[in-house]
């Protein structure tokens, strides 16, 4: 177990100190307090520092696959996604992952954009990345809360809103 020290980060969904017999484990592992939204209760994921979580890695694969979308990919006139938008989306996933946040979904849009969503209960942040602008929107249920430029706010502050 000591060989794993400083190499792996341990993330326990809905950490139960009795179940994990907590204190001994906590000497060797970091127990995250936040619950990963797309990991089933009780699941445990292990990742090396600097690596993406399995969930964010899957999101990155989805984003990379958007390179294959050609003009009219939705048969309703959608445009292909430029490489720089794909690269930007991947960078935002890495930034979110560094803050221990899981991207809930990634979707291509019809106007060369990519939508990234962060979600916690009924609070959702949409990050919409166009070739010429990057914006975010906050929603609480069906209620629109705010729209602004991604440059207008620190990313970590923005992400805190969903966890409040």
């Amino acid at each position, binding site marked *: 177990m000591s060989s794993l020290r400083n190499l792996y980060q341990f993330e326990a969904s809905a950490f139960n100190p009795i179940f994990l017999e907590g204190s001994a484990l906590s000497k060797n592992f970091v127990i995250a307090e936040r619950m990963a939204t*797309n990991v089933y209760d009780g699941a445990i994921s292990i990742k090396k520092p600097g690596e993406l979580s399995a969930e964010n890695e899957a999101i990155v694969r989805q984003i990379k696959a958007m390179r294959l979308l050609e003009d009219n990919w*939705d*048969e*309703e*006139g*959608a*445009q292909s996604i430029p490489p720089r938008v794909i690269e930007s989306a991947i960078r935002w996933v890495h930034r979110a992952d560094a803050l221990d946040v899981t991207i809930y*979904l990634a*979707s*291509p*849009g*019809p*106007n060369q*954009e990519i*939508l990234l*969503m962060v979600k916690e209960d009924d609070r959702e942040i*949409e990050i*919409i990345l166009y070739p010429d602008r990057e*914006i975010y*929107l906050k*929603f609480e*249920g*069906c209620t*629109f809360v705010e*729209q602004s430029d991604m440059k207008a706010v620190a990313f970590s502050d923005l992400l805190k809103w969903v966890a409040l």
Partner: protein
Amino acid sequence: MKKGDRITDPEACFYRRVYRKDKRYIDPRTGKFNSRAFTPRPKDKGFLSVDLKRLTNISLALNQDPAKFVLGTIVNRDVLALGIESIYDPKTLAEDGFDNKAHCLIGHIPIEDESIAGILARRAQKIEQE
């Protein structure tokens, strides 16, 4: 009703046809639409293309291709609440190359305002298909 007329009945319903392959416009976990499904295409010039429910049927609105498309229902009340309009815009074979007497436009949606697409996506009801 003639082309260009505004639809003022708040209870009027519209079908929005959404591409469903690979669930690109749909949240795979909840099955709900995401905002990109309600974003006008470049060719639409800020208007969302929909069909007036009472002038069509599900099969026609799906372009008779349920494998590729799914329908969302939008109520005019939600459109009017956003400060935008629903406009009757029927298509004819002679003028447009295809017939669609139910076609309407919702707009105008300014390109910089993403909230409208997000709200419509969250308020739309998906018509589940077998």
